[in-house]
């Protein structure tokens, strides 16, 4: 098919390579504009890259996004502050608990109740976030391997991710989109058997991370595909707003958990891994090391949760005007109101029923103002800018998703390089399109 303005257009659907090659030889033109995506296995979801190629060299790369835009920010303006959690958890679907945490921290700061969050809820938040960091990095490394041809890595990594998802299911009732962290605390305490499950995970996981390292760390094919590939130095990261493992691969130990601690991270012992290579391999090494550091934090959380409990140790703020009154429990049909709570509101206390009804239908009012809170998600700084007009619903919530900002740097990383390195560059950024498009 020919179009005057754009030159010759070929539609490649597979199995017709001979025709395409024959036609391309006929034209004898080197410059080729290739449309990669939006449906392409190695673009991490629906990301479209428009590549201008000169032979095998990329001369221009333009990412096109927006294919997964679902209007989460707008939707949240029409739900109560608590219901907002169920929306924002779906943004970056590989790290749902970080989305919830960033949002809840900003709502709590707007309410001015940051210091009233029960300590046990804070420990549970840290525990869940660090488990989530492992599951997210496992997915990142698994797909990294797959995209450059190492299928085994994906299988191993997904097997490990499955263990974390099983723990999530045990603790929150759901494998993803948990809505576990709520404004004021978390939805429920650890169920029976959770501590044993966590200890078992801590026991079996380190050697399995070692197994992955043995597969990749010194693998000559992996090294050839990742070393000195997708280079982005510190100045580039700063000006393009790149955070997370990509920034730490330039040697800067910038981790919000250390530099601007939230959820009591200053009380945990862990290191911030850095590399100085500025390339895809450095980012891989940082993700591996971060999983090992996360295991350290999880082990400290388990110790704290297993310690002798004070008599009254809630996981939701005591202020009955804010704390979601529904006591939840994982039943045979999933997460729902606990039988005890239903018996209490329906049979024992009229006031409890009124309270439940008001908070669940109307929600709580949040004082006027705006805040910005940032948390260190597996991909970098996840910020939440929340604005309240004094009502029961958010006036405006904006998420600064790290994938969105990091993806901008793709052109800087790949232009002038080989087309095969584009795949490694995307994989090393680990963008999640649900978070990019929101």
């Amino acid at each position, binding site marked *: 098919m020919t179009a005057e303005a754009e030159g010759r257009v070929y539609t490649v659907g597979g199995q017709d390579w001979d025709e395409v090659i024959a036609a391309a030889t006929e034209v004898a033109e080197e410059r080729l504009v290739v449309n990669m995506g939006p449906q392409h296995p190695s673009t991490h979801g629906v990301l479209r890259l428009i590549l201008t190629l000169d032979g095998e060299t990329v001369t221009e790369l333009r990412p096109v996004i927006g294919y997964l*835009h679902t209007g989460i920010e707008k939707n949240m303006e029409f739900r109560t502050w608590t219901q907002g959690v169920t929306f924002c958890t779906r943004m970056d679907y590989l790290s749902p608990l970080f989305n919830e945490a960033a949002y809840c921290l900003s709502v709590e700061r707007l309410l001015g109740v940051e210091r009233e969050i029960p300590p046990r809820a804070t420990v549970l938040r840290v525990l869940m976030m660090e488990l989530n960091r492992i599951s997210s990095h496992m997915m990142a490394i698994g797909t990294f391997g797959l995209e450059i041809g190492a299928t085994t890595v994906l299988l191993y990594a997904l097997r490990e991710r499955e263990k974390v998802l099983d723990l999530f299911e045990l603790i929150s009732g759901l494998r993803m989109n948990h809505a576990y962290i709520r404004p004021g605390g978390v939805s429920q305490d650890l169920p029976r058997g959770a501590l044993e499950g966590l200890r078992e995970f801590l026991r079996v996981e380190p050697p399995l991370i070692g197994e992955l390292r043995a597969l990749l760390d010194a693998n000559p094919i992996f090294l050839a595909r990742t070393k000195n590939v997708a280079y982005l130095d510190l100045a580039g990261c700063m000006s393009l707003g790149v955070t997370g493992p990509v920034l730490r691969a330039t040697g800067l130990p910038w981790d919000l958990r250390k530099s*601007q601690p939230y959820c009591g991270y200053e009380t945990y012992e862990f290191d911030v891994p850095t590399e100085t290579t500025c390339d895809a391999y450095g980012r891989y090494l940082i993700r591996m090391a971060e999983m090992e550091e996360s295991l350290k934090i999880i082990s400290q959380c388990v110790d704290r949760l297993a310690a002798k409990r004070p008599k009254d140790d809630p996981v939701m703020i005591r202020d009955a005007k804010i704390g979601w009154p529904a006591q939840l429990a994982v039943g045979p049909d999933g997460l729902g109101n606990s039988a005890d709570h239903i018996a209490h509101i329906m049979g024992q206390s009229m006031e409890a029923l009124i309270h439940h009804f008001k908070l669940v239908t109307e929600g709580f009012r949040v004082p006027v103002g*705006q*805040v910005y809170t940032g948390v260190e998600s597996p991909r970098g700084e996840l910020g939440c*800018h929340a604005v309240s007009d004094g009502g029961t619903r958010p006036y405006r919530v904006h998420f600064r998703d790290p994938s969105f900002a990091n993806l901008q740097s793709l052109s800087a990383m790949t232009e002038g390089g080989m087309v095969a390195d584009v795949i490694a560059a995307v994989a090393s950024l680990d963008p999640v399109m649900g978070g990019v498009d929101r």
Partner: protein
Amino acid sequence: MTSDNVTDGQPDPAAAAGEHRLSQEVERTGMFGTGTTGDTSGYGGLRVRRPDQAATPRPYGSYFDEVADELAAGLERSGGSFAEAVTQVAVDRGELTLHVPREHLVAVARLLRDEPSLGFEMCLGVSGVHYPWDTGRELHAVYPLLSIIHNRRVRLEVSAPDSDPRVPSLVQVYPTCDWHERETWDFFGVIFEGHPALTRIEMPDDWKGHPQRKDYPLGGIPVEYRGATIPPPEDRRSYS
């Protein structure tokens, strides 16, 4: 009974509190849901709206005074003045917001980035907010800035009227603003002047309107289900 409220010339405290409440800047329409249907379930059109933030007097506390002083010194060196370039300083919930008129935005951002004592190397994007009732400054753009070297944060806020929704682009100062500004244009219709290619980023290229503005119609039709009709989102009952 009004005579009871004033005893020996002193106003009654309860009456004074009522006066104070009435003189506050709020807009109220209707009471307890009687605006439209007389529904007394607690739903209804009671709206309480206030300006987002009031100005904070000095001292601001924390590192905020230092940031303001350094910025003022820098502005004076380059021939400007703090009073002109920053119309309002608001400290709220431990966060510093500088309200900057749009004509001074680029200069202030450049100074915040380049001055070694300020050092806000990183911009964390742009967030648009639409205040339709705030006549003359309906559209706001909020820039959270981060200084890694000093471990500090500051927020810049600019506003533009709906009739002239133009704000200078910060792409020259912070290249990361490229996509963020496109997003804010897409969702709010703020035109960032000087942006290299201000096109839609999330919505399809041929989309009409800017969906995250408050006046953007949600659409929808009433849906009938088992004899009951569920109205479209905008016509549903809601609190606040």
